[in-house]
């Protein structure tokens, strides 16, 4: 019995599996060729693999694999309840009616070791859903959806607001921290029975100055926590990089060079002072600074950042890395990220250097590591 380190890559046109074959990382399989996958989840608790689909015509769907991705079976998509008759629910920016209807499953997370079948799904237009049967059925978490603050959330990038980050505290499965664009940082300590608005210290440059610090309008592009010290939470925000040492209650802004703008962040699983980011110029120029792609790493809680460029293109690169497209493995040494231009890189030395796995994948939405216990390699070994 051995184990295989696997990278799952959800793209605009398929779900790819990457493994180390004879010492070299390579694509070994693709599922859902041609279909749009915004998200995936490789559940380390039971080995189930979830593929989230966004069919252009036929809506958001979830498929589940019990054999590591060889075959999939569709399970229920989250479903919003009927909108109450006469219930006013108006988008604060567009002034249009908010339809209580699933647009996108944007995030999907396992619900903790002591909740073996529990899943959490974050969606657009802003609903959090819980499943206690591995996705066979879903329930909208009304305690958050019915909050009056929810009606002030608005879309950031997407037309409608959405929950993209669901951090489950490894010490207590009922403790969740949510990142919402644009609705700030929310916490529950009772498995979703009640929520509090957190994220003090974040500020936004896209609203008038007197509203800049309103926690409910913040656009944290992505949240990530240190598993060994979940009090430490990193945020790649629309208006910069932030870090919390009190579990997301308050954040301090950090300053990275050449830019603090970006979408993705990965937190080191053991070292609370280490995290990685992939910067872009700024919100109205979403390309690498100077056409030079880099990963920014801090190893001292954000007091300084190091630019990691070895193995990455040094000029004429236009890769943007979406918020779910950067991941680190459980050891903190394997790093993977994929870009809008279909490039995929893996680092085996904690980000010191990168190896290109492919330059011609579809636009990459989500990259996630998993470790699979196997008797022998499960995929056909590609002859070298």
């Amino acid at each position, binding site marked *: 019995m051995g184990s295989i380190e696997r990278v799952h890559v959800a793209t605009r046109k398929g779900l790819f599996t990457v493994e180390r074959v004879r010492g070299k990382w390579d694509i070994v399989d693709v599922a859902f060729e041609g279909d749009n996958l915004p998200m995936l989840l490789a559940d380390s608790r039971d080995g189930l693999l979830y593929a989230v689909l966004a*069919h*252009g*015509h*036929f*809506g958001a*769907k979830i498929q589940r694999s019990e054999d590591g991705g060889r075959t999939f079976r*569709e399970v229920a*998509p989250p*479903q*919003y*309840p*009927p*909108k109450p008759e006469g219930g006013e629910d108006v988008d604060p920016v567009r002034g249009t009616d908010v*339809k*209580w*209807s*699933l647009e996108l499953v944007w995030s999907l997370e396992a619900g903790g070791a002591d909740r073996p079948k529990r899943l959490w799904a974050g969606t657009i237009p802003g609903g959090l859903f819980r499943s206690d049967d591995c996705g066979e059925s879903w329930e909208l978490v009304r305690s958050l959806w019915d909050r009056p603050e929810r009606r002030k959330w608005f879309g950031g990038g997407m037309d409608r607001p959405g929950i993209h980050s669901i951090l489950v505290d490894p010490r207590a499965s009922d403790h969740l921290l949510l990142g919402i664009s644009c609705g700030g940082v929310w916490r529950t300590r009772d498995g979703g029975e009640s929520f509090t608005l957190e994220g003090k210290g974040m500020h936004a440059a896209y609203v008038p100055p007197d509203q800049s610090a309103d926690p409910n309008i913040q656009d944290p592009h992505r949240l990530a926590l240190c598993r060994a010290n979940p009090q430490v939470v990193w945020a790649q925000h629309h208006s910069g990089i932030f870090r919390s040492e009190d579990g997301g209650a308050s954040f301090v802004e950090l300053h990275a060079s050449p830019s603090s703008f970006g979408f993705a962040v990965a937190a080191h699983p053991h070292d609370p002072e280490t995290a990685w980011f992939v910067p872009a110029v700024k919100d109205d120029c979403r390309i690498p600074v100077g056409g030079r792609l880099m990963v920014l790493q801090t190893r001292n809680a954000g007091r300084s950042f190091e630019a990691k460029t070895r193995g990455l293109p040094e000029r004429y690169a236009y890769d943007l890395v979406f918020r779910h497209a950067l991941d680190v493995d459980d050891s903190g040494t394997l790093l993977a990220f994929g870009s809008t231009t279909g490039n995929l890189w893996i680092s085996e030395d904690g980000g010191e250097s990168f190896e290109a796995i492919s330059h011609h994948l579809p636009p990459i939405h989500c990259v996630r590591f998993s470790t699979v216990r196997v008797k022998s390699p499960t995929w056909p070994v590609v002859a070298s």
Partner: protein
Amino acid sequence: MPKLNFTPNLERHLGLGSMQVEGSTLREAFDYAFRSLERARSYVLDDQGHVRHHVAVFVDGELVHDRVFLSRPLSEASEIWVMQALSGG
């Protein structure tokens, strides 16, 4: 009995072709069809039971405009086509 036809693109997801249905309105016909094909409901209708934004429904050659209540009357000889709109893909 009215006849319900699905676009070949739905056949890929659901294995659906065409079927005979019962009902005097489009809503009744869909309810009849989806009772035995519950999974298909979410491909054609959204959470609120409205026709999906990028799905087009034709009855006897005419595009259905009431996408909310699906009140379009059917005759015994009606033919329904569920198609993908030329957008959203």
